[in-house]
């Protein structure tokens, strides 16, 4: 519980048995009373067992569905268990849980809050085609969301109740869908998106992809995902979910009956 809200931190994990204990312990220390859900995305190591041993809720997907798939599951879980706030956060320790209260506080004026890496805090830097891709995405998505966004591919996000419901019914699962397309979809359906600056930490496990060829492919794919996200038709039952139910008390009556 933070400010009387039930909070769930969703950690999609694929073979993260090594890094999980540290981040889970940190969350429990800094954010007592917050639930964590480790979505084991078809790991071949002991990710699920480690997460359970460290007192987290665990869901095991029977096979690998990718980050988007794991996140979609996380939002379905949060919706089914009626959480007020859901946060997504990497299991590799890049996202500092100390920022969680800041993200949640910002939910007072938004439905979706992004923890942005280039907005002042920290020293995260990228160059070449990858940075062009990120700039292009920032410019386009800032216009779509009608707010200044500087880090649109951040995997550190907080959602309020109506956003959770929206994402539990509609969450893109393909490449970059979990960052770009999910945001475009939310903005197109009228949800308010804001960002708060966060400092990123060095990842403790895994390596980032840095080659220029890979970065160029990334640019091309990001462009395609963006284009598709802009022209894709939103299903009617998804569009019917109304943004702006920021507190449980303000929950509109027509949503409860469904």
């Amino acid at each position, binding site marked *: 519980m933070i400010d009387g809200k039930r909070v769930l931190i969703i950690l999609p994990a694929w073979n993260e048995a090594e890094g999980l204990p540290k981040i889970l312990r940190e969350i429990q220390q800094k954010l007592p009373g917050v639930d964590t*859900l480790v*979505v*084991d995305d*078809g*790991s*071949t*190591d*002991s*990710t*699920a*067992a480690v997460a*359970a041993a460290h007192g987290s*809720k*665990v*869901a*095991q*997907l*029977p*096979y690998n*569905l990718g980050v988007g*798939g794991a996140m*979609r*599951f996380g939002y*379905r*879980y949060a919706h*089914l268990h009626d959480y007020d706030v859901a946060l997504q956060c990497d299991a590799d320790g890049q996202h500092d849980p100390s920022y969680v209260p800041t993200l949640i506080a910002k939910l007072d004026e938004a439905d979706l809050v992004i923890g942005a890496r280039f907005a002042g805090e920290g020293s995260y830097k990228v160059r070449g085609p990858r940075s062009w891709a990120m700039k292009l995405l920032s410019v386009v998505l800032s216009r779509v969301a009608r707010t200044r966004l500087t880090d649109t591919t951040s995997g550190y996000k907080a959602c309020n109740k109506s956003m959770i419901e929206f994402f539990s019914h509609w969450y893109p*699962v393909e490449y970059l869908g979990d960052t770009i397309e999910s945001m475009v979809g939310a903005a197109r359906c009228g949800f308010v998106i804001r960002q708060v600056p966060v400092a990123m930490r060095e990842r403790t496990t895994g390596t980032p992809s840095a080659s220029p060829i890979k970065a160029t492919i990334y640019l091309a794919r990001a462009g395609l995902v963006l284009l598709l996200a802009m022209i894709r038709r939103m299903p009617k039952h998804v569009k019917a979910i109304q943004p702006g139910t920021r507190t449980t008390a303000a929950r509109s009556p027509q949503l409860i009956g469904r």
Partner: protein
Amino acid sequence: MHLTVITSITGVLVLVYILELLRRQQLREKYAAIWLAIGVVVAPLGFFPTILDSTARKLGIASGVSLVLFAGFVLLLLVSLHLSWEASRLEAETRTLAEDVAMMRAYLAEHHDYPIARSNSDAAKATDPGVTA
């Protein structure tokens, strides 16, 4: 060997194979209808490749054989497109199933001591040795 011998044999074999798959219920009816229609149209062409010559000339194509080649290409394109569509739909369905399975496993683990598999490869091996390499 004359061309018509090869084409006619092929036409008949394909038709027989479709019928056999149908007879063994290996093809769903919704696909079977398409393939049967294709087989019935294509098989006679094997025996008489020239029957399309006049139609082809009206369309401005040199010979019936070229027309068949072109039509065949378009047909295969449409069929593979249809299969991609079916695969996308099936993937969405199995994805939802996988999520539901995970949801229930999480509930059972939390409330009824359902075991958490040490790793998914163990869980998969237990049920289907063919799945994991």
